[in-house]
């Protein structure tokens, strides 16, 4: 028996290994790391001293960018070879699809977006947000196989361990009817990614025109953070390539300032893990104030410049 760990980001293996140890404590077995694609294969040394019993590297040109069907082959191969019953991955959209495919192939229970993972009475119990982040569901794995997608920041990263054996493997990828014809990586304008930023400045429909996003950018710059928008500004008006919210990017900064954001569940569920939330809105009835630690009732076009001015001085 073994527990497989896979992430598209090498940095997240440390946390996933800790979650794997929880499973191992209960069910025994080895924890094996799976690395897919040239970028991660090239940096596999980063995870070599964390106590994984083996690291299996699948480094074929077809695996350089995500294709759910080729990645499925790699994971399936590893499951078969190492008699894996548990597969742990970081929670993101790509892995929802990969995890769904893997789970159906091995008839495993699948829980995604896990915000807490425990063992209760010998069973794996996972908590995940549901109903647009308004509620928390407690799910139990009833069988003896599971694919679990865990949110970042839930487990303490494992910082050291014994040296792992790294094994390069090749797999047969013929007969797969899905071709990746183009990949356009997301461009990050300001250099700080929304989901990694300590400070995020968000703008909603209170922003009247694209040019006014400069206000958000300026404040984000002063505070060394990232800026973002709500779904309508990105998806409907095309002012940004991504948005903050459950169907876009979930953020977890120390400080989130929402300017002109009304507070739709779609958005608030993606900001829930922020430490402090500040809302600026001229409508005192805006739902966002219920999600805010500090609410400023006022016009963002007056409040933001004043805040920028004050912070520049101090």
């Amino acid at each position, binding site marked *: 028996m073994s527990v497989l760990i896979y992430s598209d980001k090498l940095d997240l293996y440390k946390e996933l290994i800790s979650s794997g140890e929880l499973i191992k404590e209960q069910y025994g077995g080895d924890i094996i790391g799976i690395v897919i694609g040239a970028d991660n294969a090239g940096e596999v040394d980063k995870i070599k001293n964390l106590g994984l019993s083996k690291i299996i590297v699948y480094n074929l040109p077809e695996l350089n960018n995500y294709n759910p069907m080729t990645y499925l082959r790699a994971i399936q191969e590893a499951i078969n070879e190492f008699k894996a019953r548990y597969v742990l991955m970081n929670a993101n959209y*790509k892995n929802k*699809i990969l995890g769904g495919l893997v*789970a159906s192939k091995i008839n495993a229970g699948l829980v995604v977006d896990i915000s807490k993972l425990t063992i209760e009475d010998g069973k794996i119990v996972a908590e995940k947000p549901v109903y647009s982040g308004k509620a928390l569901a407690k799910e139990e794995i009833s069988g003896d196989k599971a694919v679990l997608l865990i949110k970042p920041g839930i487990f303490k990263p494992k910082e050291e361990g014994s040296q792992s054996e790294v094994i390069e493997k090749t797999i047969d990828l013929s007969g797969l*009817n899905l*071709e990746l014809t183009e990949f356009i990586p997301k461009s990050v304008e300001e250099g700080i990614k929304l989901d990694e930023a300590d400070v995020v400045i968000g703008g909603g429909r209170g922003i009247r025109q694209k040019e006014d996003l400069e206000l958000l950018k300026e404040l984000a710059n002063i505070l060394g953070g990232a800026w973002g928008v709500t779904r309508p500004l990105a998806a409907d008006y095309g002012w940004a390539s991504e948005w903050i919210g459950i169907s876009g990017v979930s953020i977890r900064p120390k400080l989130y300032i929402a300017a002109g954001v009304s507070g739709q569940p779609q958005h608030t569920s993606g900001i829930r893990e922020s430490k402090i939330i500040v809302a600026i809105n001229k409508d005192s009835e805006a739902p966002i104030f219920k999600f805010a630690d*500090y609410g400023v009732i006022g016009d963002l076009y007056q409040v933001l410049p004043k*805040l920028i001015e004050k912070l520049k001085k101090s």
Partner: protein
Amino acid sequence: MVINMVKILVGVKYSLQVENLSIDPKNRSILLDETPKKMGDMDKRALEEAIRIKEKHGGEVVVLCVGPKEANKILLEAYAMGADEAYLVPFEGFYDTSFIANVFSKFYETKGPFDLIILGGASTDSFSGTLGARIAGLLNIPVVPFVSKLDLENGAIIGESALDDGKYKYKCNTPAVVTVTLEINEPRIPKLKDILRAKRKKINEISVSDLGLGEISNLVITRDVKAYEEKRKQIILDASEPSKLDEVIDKLVNYLKEEGVL
């Protein structure tokens, strides 16, 4: 080869309207019966996309819903939008995604084959986003996930997927599962005459046992669901009078310094 007469299966969920979630104030459990429901937002886009494909290439759109009898309501809506056949698999109580995936794959085998299965990328209520992948896995066909632009060209499906780190363009042959996002289209609003005509259409019922599914044990059991308590401080500073602005900003900055976030 030009695709014509595309046979499409669309899945729709009778979803909770999460913006009107009814919560028991005593124990924060969710009052499912009292929460209004509707066709899932992305499911509606899946149906719209299927109808557009039919309008362009010819074919048939079959809609499937697993849910309680009242879910007929959204199947009538599907007819009004332009679906050709609607099926309800009556089912109440708890089920997990693997159960629903089994229903879809058995339905595909019983009433299919279909060229395309189009689903919403994620349901409006539980928002797991894994059903399409599970169905594809069971049927051994590819899945093109979270598609915001879909084309059928020379017998191939071309889908643009907006995923975590960028935009992916995938190509495959039919049959395939496609899951769609809110961005793919703007669903039509049925005209009154279509709504009236839909009311005369028959909703087919097909039971779990008709599909050859006996006792399926859930692989995941939901122990409980509790509404979050909003634990934010909700300290409100009123700067609606411009004269108060300086004072409010000073206060805000002080609060944020005390919190250690500035």
